[in-house]
């Protein structure tokens, strides 16, 4: 059993500025900041900065006693005993205090009002670790010296494992840790967080996401934010993301950009992906053609349910919806449709030709979104196929594409106001 003793717990802000005395009682300076090293589970304090503009630190194991009144050292202070700041060490006040961080627990951006430290003795080794950040009102008023006003409030502390600082941090160890934490966030939460960040931090944040994470998060944003992000992104990365995105979403974004910029991005994309997107970009805004995705699932009428199910396993990850299976001939004329349920309950040896519905509900590429919505609503569909005059299927419009248009977020309405501040000073464009 490890010997483990807590020597003290502190609010960092109340230690700031406290005088430091050495063994013979000489005043060395004040506690200006603390340097922290993060190579284990908890970030550990390595040293105390005792004067401005010096990077010599008093090592943490020199501390004899520590209180909100003063800090006392075990030995007499000599400049030779100080340590210098290691390149991966960071000053906590400059790096964390008053800064914005991601609260992974609540999936939002919060501001650090204070930091709690724990001074512990473990296996005869003194260590001081960062335990949590204070993001509550009480912490705020503690900084102002008015904590007594909020005595009845609970401290709003956020454990170290739940925070992600927004400032650049170059330790690779920590990056892996972050990636894992971020992958646990829901893409919609991630989207909200990204919309709240300023553009530099957002770029930095996206750089740390893999393509799939970035696409999932982008898909949850409104068009304005998507356009803004793609515009500000490095072209190569932007084209990679656009390539992987659903072609209808990619097209929506690209038509909002300048011709110069969108052509540049299209040229960087793989040819067939770019071709899909280009076709969608031709349709005027708010028509079925512009709303549809070309990633639907279609089969030949001669297949059996069993063959179809096997193929589905391969196709499903790509397609936007697999609940409707469209049946086409060689020339891609739409012949019928059946639902996933009908496919699964069908006898394995039947032919799609016998199972499919031939009474088709379709829209034309130039129908406006109102008409598409009416059709989807009237027939209770999850998706409606878009066919041209010859009856060739061009794509499908899913119900969620329509909902996005019919029910804009309330926050979005504000962007039409000239004076609106949907994102005040970097806060969320909700």
């Amino acid at each position, binding site marked *: 059993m490890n010997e483990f003793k807590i020597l003290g717990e502190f609010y960092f802000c109340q230690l700031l500025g406290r005088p430091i005395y050495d063994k013979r009682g000489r005043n060395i300076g004040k506690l200006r900041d603390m340097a922290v090293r993060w190579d284990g589970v908890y970030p550990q304090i390595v040293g105390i900065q005792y004067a401005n503009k010096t990077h010599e630190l008093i090592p943490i194991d020199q501390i004899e006693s520590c209180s909100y009144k003063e800090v006392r050292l075990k030995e007499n202070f000599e400049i030779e005993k100080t340590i210098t700041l290691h390149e991966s060490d960071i000053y906590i006040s400059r790096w964390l*205090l*008053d*800064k*914005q961080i991601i609260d992974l627990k609540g999936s*939002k951006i*919060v*501001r650090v*009002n204070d930091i709690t430290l724990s001074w512990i003795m473990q296996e005869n080794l003194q260590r001081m670790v960062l335990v949590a950040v204070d*993001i509550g009102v009480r912490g*705020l008023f503690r*900084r*102002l010296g008015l904590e007594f006003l909020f005595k009845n409030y609970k401290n709003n502390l956020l454990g170290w494992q739940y925070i992600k600082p927004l400032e650049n941090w170059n330790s690779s160890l920590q990056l892996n840790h972050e990636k894992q934490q971020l992958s646990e966030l829901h893409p919609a939460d991630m989207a909200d967080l990204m919309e709240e960040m*300023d*553009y*530099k*931090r957002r770029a930095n944040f996206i750089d740390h996401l893999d393509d799939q994470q970035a696409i999932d998060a982008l898909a949850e944003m409104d068009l*304005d934010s998507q356009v*803004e992000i793609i515009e*500000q992104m490095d072209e190569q990365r932007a084209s990679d993301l656009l390539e992987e995105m659903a072609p209808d979403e990619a097209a929506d974004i690209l038509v909002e950009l300048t011709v110069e910029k969108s052509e540049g991005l299209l040229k960087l994309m793989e040819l067939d992906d770019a071709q899909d997107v280009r076709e969608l970009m031709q349709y005027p805004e708010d028509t079925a053609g512009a709303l549809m995705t070309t990633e639907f699932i279609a089969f030949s009428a001669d297949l059996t349910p069993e063959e179809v199910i096997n193929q589905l396993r391969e196709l499903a990850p790509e397609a936007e919806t697999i609940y409707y299976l469209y049946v086409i001939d060689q020339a891609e004329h739409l012949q019928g449709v059946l639902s996933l349920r009908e496919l699964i309950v069908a006898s394995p040896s039947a032919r799609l030709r016998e199972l499919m519905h031939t009474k088709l509900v379709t829209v034309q590429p130039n129908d406006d979104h109102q008409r598409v919505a009416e059709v989807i609503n009237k027939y209770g569909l999850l998706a409606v196929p878009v066919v041209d005059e010859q009856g060739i299927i061009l794509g499908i419009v899913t119900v969620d594409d329509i909902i996005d248009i019919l029910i804009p*977020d*309330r*926050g979005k*309405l*504000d962007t*039409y*106001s*000239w*004076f*609106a*501040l*949907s*994102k*005040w*000073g*970097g*806060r*969320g*464009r*909700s």
Partner: protein
Amino acid sequence: MSNTIKNIRTRLGLFLAVMGPGVVTAFADNDAGGIATYAAAGAKYGYGLLFTVLISSVCLAIAQEISARTGAVTGRGLSDLIRELFGVKWTFFAMIVLLIANIGTTASEFSGVATSFEIFGVSKFISVPIMALLVWWLVLKGNYSRIEKIFFMLCATFLSYIVSGIIINPPWEQVLLASVTPTFASDGEFLMMAIGVIGTTITPWGQFYIQAAVVDKGITVKDYRYVFWDVMLGAFFTWLIAFFIIVTTAATLYANQISIETVKDAAMALEPLAGKYASMLFSFGLLGASMLAAFILPLSTAYAVCEAFGFESGVSKTSKEAPVFFGIFTVLIVLGAGIALWPDLSLYKVMLASQVINGVLLPPILIFMVLIANNVSVMGKYKNSNWYNVVSWTFTIVLIILTLLLLLSTIAPELMDSLMKLIGL
């Protein structure tokens, strides 16, 4: 027919969409308090304050440029940066300053609303509560973008001061000369008027607002040059309107020794253009400007404070999710409307006083702004150039001196007199 109207409307919409934060801020800046102050300045001192208007417009351009540039470079709001660079205590100070200034300004906006309705014989005890409720409800629950455009159009009636000014045809030579000749008087009233003119041209909230608007529009450093011209155009507009209000009121009121008792008197300066409809024209403009600012002021204040302290904010949140945000917004409207409704308080005095308060509270905000814009780790190569710093520090110091002189002349006029004699004024 209806097609042509639609066409014109689309074009107008396009033009307005291109207009950026700079021009929008400039329009919102010429609010009720602004009109009242300029009109009072013209009526009382004739062309005497034209020089102050010119200088404060130049400084407006510089201040707005600093804020807009900071917003574009950092992508972050002013209170956010104050918090990160100066810590909690300074932020608290800055927010108190902003809150006091904005409560005053909101009160002046509702006074403007009250005045414009009084011209039509509607009591302020009816108009102010209704309009306050309308603002509160539309911002939080409804969609105010359409109604906002109506008020914006109403603001355009202030352009009629320009037409009126041309019709009056004042002695242009004298006017232009006055514009470039520094005028100074040491009495408290003049100082107050000068600070008021500065305070209504450059406002603390305007600085927070333009930076946020730049961030909000997603303008980054590579688009910055457009914003630069947008800011310059905005400052020019502010000056143009202020210039003509002073010129027309000087030519009509000052020349005939009519002193302004209420803001309504400022409508007299429009008589050469609109005749007996002058006060109607004036009241439309005043209503538009006041309502426009009444929409954004409480909102932008709530955003700024929440941003600084990390409280939840946003109109799409519920009052449970973002209690501080909704609290500040509501309190500002209630206090603003409440002051305007105070029985024995002259609406005109509220408007003037709020502009003086803005002027007095401006220096601390300017100091924060300039310090941030000089911070290399924040601004990189876009930090302030040297001559910029010289101008902004000079202006800040002059404003502080003016404020101190005003204070001195209020509490100890005799001391002020002897001081002025000492330096030979």
